[in-house]
């Protein structure tokens, strides 16, 4: 699954979480947006990653993604989610319940 554009199911799901639960303006949510540019502080970013993990029923290893690290984009987050989903569910599509 490609996560390089703004129309993949993974991106749409995390965009919905950001918009609904964290009140981030939709216009500010693009694949190139860095996590640190979402207007969320470090605690809210951790909460966001938890919400993503719960929605996709997976755990993102900390060595793959520290949300406080500068420069990590939503596209990168999607790639990590897709990789973890594939590994965790043996080829099943990621279940996005957000």
């Amino acid at each position, binding site marked *: 699954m490609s996560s390089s554009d703004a129309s993949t199911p993974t991106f749409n799901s995390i965009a919905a979480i950001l918009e*609904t*639960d*964290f*009140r981030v303006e939709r216009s500010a949510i693009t694949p190139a947006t860095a996590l640190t540019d979402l*207007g*969320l*502080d470090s*605690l*809210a970013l*951790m*909460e966001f990653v*938890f919400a993503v993990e*719960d929605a996709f029923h997976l755990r993102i290893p900390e060595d793959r993604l520290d949300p406080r690290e500068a420069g990590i984009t939503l596209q990168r987050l999607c790639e990590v989610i897709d990789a973890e989903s594939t590994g965790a569910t043996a080829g099943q599509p990621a279940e996005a319940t957000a």
Partner: protein
Amino acid sequence: MSSGAAHAVLAASAARAASAPVRVSGIGFVTPIGRTVEAFDEALFAGRSAVRAQTLEIKGMDPMALAVAACDFDSNGVRSTSRLPLDRGTAMALAAAQDAAGEAKLDLETIDRDRLGIFWGCGLAGAGTFDNTTSALYGEQRRMRPTTVLTVMPNAAVAELALHFGARGSAIAYACACASSAVAIGEAMRAIRGGWIDVAIVGGHDAMLTPGVMASWHAMRVMAPPPADAPSSACRPFSGDRAGFAIGEGAAALVLESEAHAAARGAEAAPFVLAGYATNCDGTHITNPDAAGQVRVMRAALRDAGIEASEVGHINAHGTATSAGDAAEAASIREVFSNTVPVSATKAIHGHVLGGGGAIELVAALRALARETLPPIANLQTPDAAFDLDFVQGEAREAKGIRYALSNSFAFGGTNAVIVAGRASDR
């Protein structure tokens, strides 16, 4: 002027400030009987109860038949300034406070927010969130969220309110069970009178309709069983057959302000003032109320307002409809006011909102002043024969010319708080 005379003038000025009425510049609320003044008044003066039956089913236990009063309120529609998740009660607090500030037409850009305070009461605060998150932790092995502590802490609502309004004066949570919001309101009065702040957003909330919290109240044997044929009549304050209370949820907020500050910002005339306040503690028992402590606190509130008992036209009693609670309050009101002041008790219609109760019940007292009409005690058919008081029974009662109303809050833990409200035009 001589030094002695100057001191006398200063002392007199300080005494006036210490007993000055504080304006109620705005009111907002989220209650089981409505979010608007129109809906609130309609239920209040008709004595129409929002209490309903709810069966709580927990695996391995007998079903529990409970009387509850829920709000028609979607907490997902409330934005937190912190962008952190909100407990349902905190969302109610924000909604109520925003309505109150809107009515007061507070311009946050122009007021001195170093002198804007938040004084807020809650009893169990984020217990609902804690109940939900821990049941998921134990039952489903779901992790606690990084923000759980910030969501359940007793000052969670205070923190969100301070962020929302940019308040930089005092921001304090008061936790004294059923008296929490009455104490919060009264302490804000004192802070304004004392000159520490000019304006305060005050009130309280609780949102307790979650399994663990409801089961806790049920276990305490203070909740009324809902009658099968008429669940809304579960809570019957001062009745001979009273059986306890219904658990409610909600929030109420007021904007309190000094007259000088209101005049300086060109605020419209306010219909109400808070004229007096007192708080004390029974110091006798953790749940059993002490009439002597209640007598002391009511008399102290009248002294603080500078009025006589005979000037009070209405009492909105704490009226929990428990056996011991109503007996103590009936005795204390009788001692302070004889049987001449009409008594209402509104928990029968909006349930017991614990930390929000004092504020919601004060709003009911203010509505009685505004309408010059006293709300009936819903579900009161036959008062306890031992109580010699003038209960407002059956239907609302006209009270033309009423000047002052009392709102009583008597808490588990022994904390008592009484607020004397008045019509601004009579001061």
